[in-house]
């Protein structure tokens, strides 16, 4: 054989591997297995999008009612990045056989979760920055990060890779949002009374979230706590 086609094919190369195996390292050990079929993933993506879209809207509503300028400007960035997340999820839906017009589709898993979202958005007056931010940055976003990461562990790593890619990127940004929110809340809650307000708000909402079953309505088994 004169023409070199694969490494290890000629005498001089002296490799013990079978010819084709040189391209196969490391071997793909993933298995075709996932907890969600196309329909289930599509529903979950609509659920995720519901939470993201409502976060965009409620944070938008709050900007004018929050007196602290750095919170207004910080929220501006979080709003845009959250909108991008909702947009990416929407673009995934037509790929999951939801139809070409499904880009804007979002769906609450149940009325209890929809009620929970309305409760998160409830605080209105300028003296309630702690209650506003605690709902989103202590409870809702950490819950979403937990569920998105769980989805990525449990869905089919090859078949549903496009969803995984979207969620991985979202999780990276959400961790930055949580960090920003915690820093702001730590600064705002600088005495016993404000710290208690923050805890009360987080506990109240965590309770409602748990009762609703979370963003997908079915809190996955094996979770010791929500956050």
């Amino acid at each position, binding site marked *: 054989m004169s023409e070199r086609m694969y490494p290890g094919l000629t005498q001089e190369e002296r490799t013990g591997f079978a010819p084709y195996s040189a391209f196969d390292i490391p071997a793909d050990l993933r298995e075709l297995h996932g907890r969600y079929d196309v329909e289930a993933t599509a529903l979950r993506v609509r659920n995720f999008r519901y939470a993201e879209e409502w976060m965009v*809207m409620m944070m*938008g509503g709050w900007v*004018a009612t929050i007196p602290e*300028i750095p919170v207004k400007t910080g929220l501006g960035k979080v*709003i845009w990045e959250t909108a991008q997340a909702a947009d990416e999820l929407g673009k995934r839906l037509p790929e999951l056989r939801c139809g070409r017009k499904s880009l804007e589709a979002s769906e609450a898993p149940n009325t209890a979760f929809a009620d929970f979202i309305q409760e998160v958005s409830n*605080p209105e007056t300028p003296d309630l920055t702690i209650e506003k931010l605690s709902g989103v940055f202590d409870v809702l976003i950490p819950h979403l990060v937990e569920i998105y990461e769980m989805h990525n562990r449990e869905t089919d790593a090859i078949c549903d890779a496009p969803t995984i890619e979207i969620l991985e990127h979202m999780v990276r940004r959400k961790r930055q949002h949580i960090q920003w929110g915690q820093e702001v809340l730590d600064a705002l809650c600088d005495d016993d009374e404000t710290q208690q307000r923050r805890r009360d708000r987080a506990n109240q909402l965590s309770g409602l979230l748990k009762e609703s079953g979370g963003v997908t309505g079915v809190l996955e088994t094996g979770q010791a706590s929500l956050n």
Partner: protein
Amino acid sequence: MKRFIDHEELARDSRFIRQDAAQANVISSLPDDVETVVNVFEQFGPIIEAGVRGTSAEPLFEELGPGFMLTVLNEPLDPDAPAAVPRLLLRMHGIFVGELQALEGAARSLWDFPDAPWEFKMNMARQCWDEARHLQIFEKLLVHLGGHVGMYPESTFLFEACCSEDPAMRVAGVNRGLEGLACDVFRDMIRFANKTGDEVMKQAVDYVLADEITHVRFGSEWVKEFTKDNPEHLKRTQDFRREVDKRFSFGGARSDREDAAIPIAREDRLEAGFTEEELQELSEISGVGPSKKTLSEAAQILRDRYHETRKAQQEGASS
């Protein structure tokens, strides 16, 4: 959280001083008559004075009397003119609070119109981030020029004038009226920075202007979309925008007139989707109002009378 808020509900921290919006509204509806202008400002004198006490505008009031905004608004920014620095800072501070209200207007559109198309929400969300950055930029520029947040009173009349409860009118007011005004002001600031050789200000404002053109474009597109198939709605929306444009012309201070303090940024507005007809119309709307000569004469009378009254009061107190 309720939908739609009043401009008086905009939340501010303790640095801010709120100004009665009446003054700005009055300025936009003055006739071309010296005596009337003087009378109006004398009538509003106590309110104007109360609004500036304890702020960095107090020296301007002391110097020019209740008509100080006439001078500030109608004379182009000139680095060599008297009181150039306080006037520059007053304009910068005005821009800063304008950005703040633009951020609040765009953000409220996300909450006030929950059933709007997703693409609209994406545009408004992007605008939130842009306006948030503009706020940060203008706070830095304010400090760069020696000022600080809260040094002048804030009038929330921009939000008041343009935040309609109708989505088409909201974008017409915020994204075409307010953002269009921003284009005019920023083009003027770039000219000023060129004159003073301030590269920091020139580059920063140039970037901001690029963002604003995008925001005006959002407005141009969404007015069309929200009013398509409804010519009557489009007409009402255009009427609303005309009203906003008139209020934002400050009696001709922002106009195509030769003596305008802030000229209309024609090229920028064309790029942002304004038509030639609309610009012609804006030119007509904004040019109506007292002439610069009228305002200069009125400002002079107000200044003289203020100093005479002060002098009489001081003499009365000492005798």
